[in-house]
């Protein structure tokens, strides 16, 4: 029924201890202590102490908290990433972001506020509203000032 050759290891699944495939929806408070890969749907809240990867087809309607995150899909909710957040070209964020480091690929969409600095701090750093589809941003860490500058320059601001 489930043949070995029928189940190739997926790209990006290698380090994930928890995998939510495209065929599954999770509702409620989802908490994990390990790496998490989401390819399906999550509604409620999502928290992991380690790394999170949101696949291109994934749809998350939840407040998300992780140590590091790579997002290629859609997140509707606030994102708190204590270390590094990476948004891939297909990423779509509808909510506020608080993180220490951010990498935004060309094409990624952010509709919300970005707070930079130590994500674990209770007092958020100065907020900069962003509603942008970031275009032609080189891959690399974008500090708060750089993010502000990108918005000032009107990089594909909606």
């Amino acid at each position, binding site marked *: 029924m489930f043949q070995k050759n029928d189940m*190739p290891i997926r790209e990006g699944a290698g380090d994930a201890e928890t995998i939510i495939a495209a065929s599954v929806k999770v509702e409620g408070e989802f908490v994990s202590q390990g790496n998490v890969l989401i390819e399906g749907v999550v509604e409620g809240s999502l928290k992991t102490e380690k790394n999170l990867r949101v696949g291109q087809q994934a749809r998350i309607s939840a407040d998300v908290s992780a140590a590091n995150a790579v997002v290629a899909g859609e997140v509707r909710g606030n994102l708190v990433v204590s270390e590094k957040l990476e948004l891939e070209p297909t990423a779509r964020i509808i909510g506020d972001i608080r993180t220490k480091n951010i990498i935004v690929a060309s094409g990624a969409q952010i509709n919300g506020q970005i707070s930079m600095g130590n994500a674990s701090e209770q007092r958020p750093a100065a907020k900069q509203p962003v509603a942008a589809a970031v275009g032609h941003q080189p891959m690399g860490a974008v500090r708060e000032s750089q993010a502000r500058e990108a918005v000032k320059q009107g990089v594909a601001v909606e």
Partner: protein
Amino acid sequence: MYYYIYDGFLADRKHERTVAAIETRLTDLGLSSKIGRLTPFTNAKGLVRDEVRRGAKTIVAVGNDETVAQVVSAIGDADVTLGIIPVGQTTWVARALGIPEGEAACETLSKRVTQMIDLGRVNGQHFLSRVSVPFGHFTVEGEGSFRICPQVADCEMIVSNLRSPDVALCEAGGRLPGDPQDGFLDVLVLTRPSTIGRLTGRGPSQQTVIPLRRLSIHAEEPITVSVDGWKMTNKDFLIEIVPERLKIITGKERLFAAE
């Protein structure tokens, strides 16, 4: 002291020679001991209870996966070591534990390499390998805080403690799900590959893996799940991990705790 529990089907003529060879080898190795037989009038629970009371320290299940399941369930909370001599079909559990078929298993028994492993418990009954749940109209709740809802009908849910070689799995987090020494049950939602996928060997990669300590299943109507091959019908199931519950004799080729 060893105590052997033979499954009833071993009385069948086709297993006569295998059983004779096993008994000869056990005698050669100095491991021959008392034998109990499962029949329609004796169950594993009664046999194990009586022999543990008489001082048995090692219970050996002789038979297939169903035999092992009965003996594991019968051992319950007793402080004994489990050995297996696989005979008949199917013997996935023995293979996962690295125990060869028939007479060769006597050598494994003799070497007595033991591992302490977790057991699963479903509605109070212990299981070693897995609970298989055909998807239908029911809800699955993990850790009492979230629900797992498959979005396709053609899939199967497996709650795995000890992975079985008959279910192919992707690695998750550098480990294969179904490690009986990690303190977790792995909830697997497996989507069946399409016919084309099966023929071409390129089926869809639809494997959900969620490590949990506890989950519950609730259905409006009674549903039947398979617990290590045994059918259990109910409307509500509480499935949980019992960490480091059973000492078991394993072979070198086991699928966990590699040397």
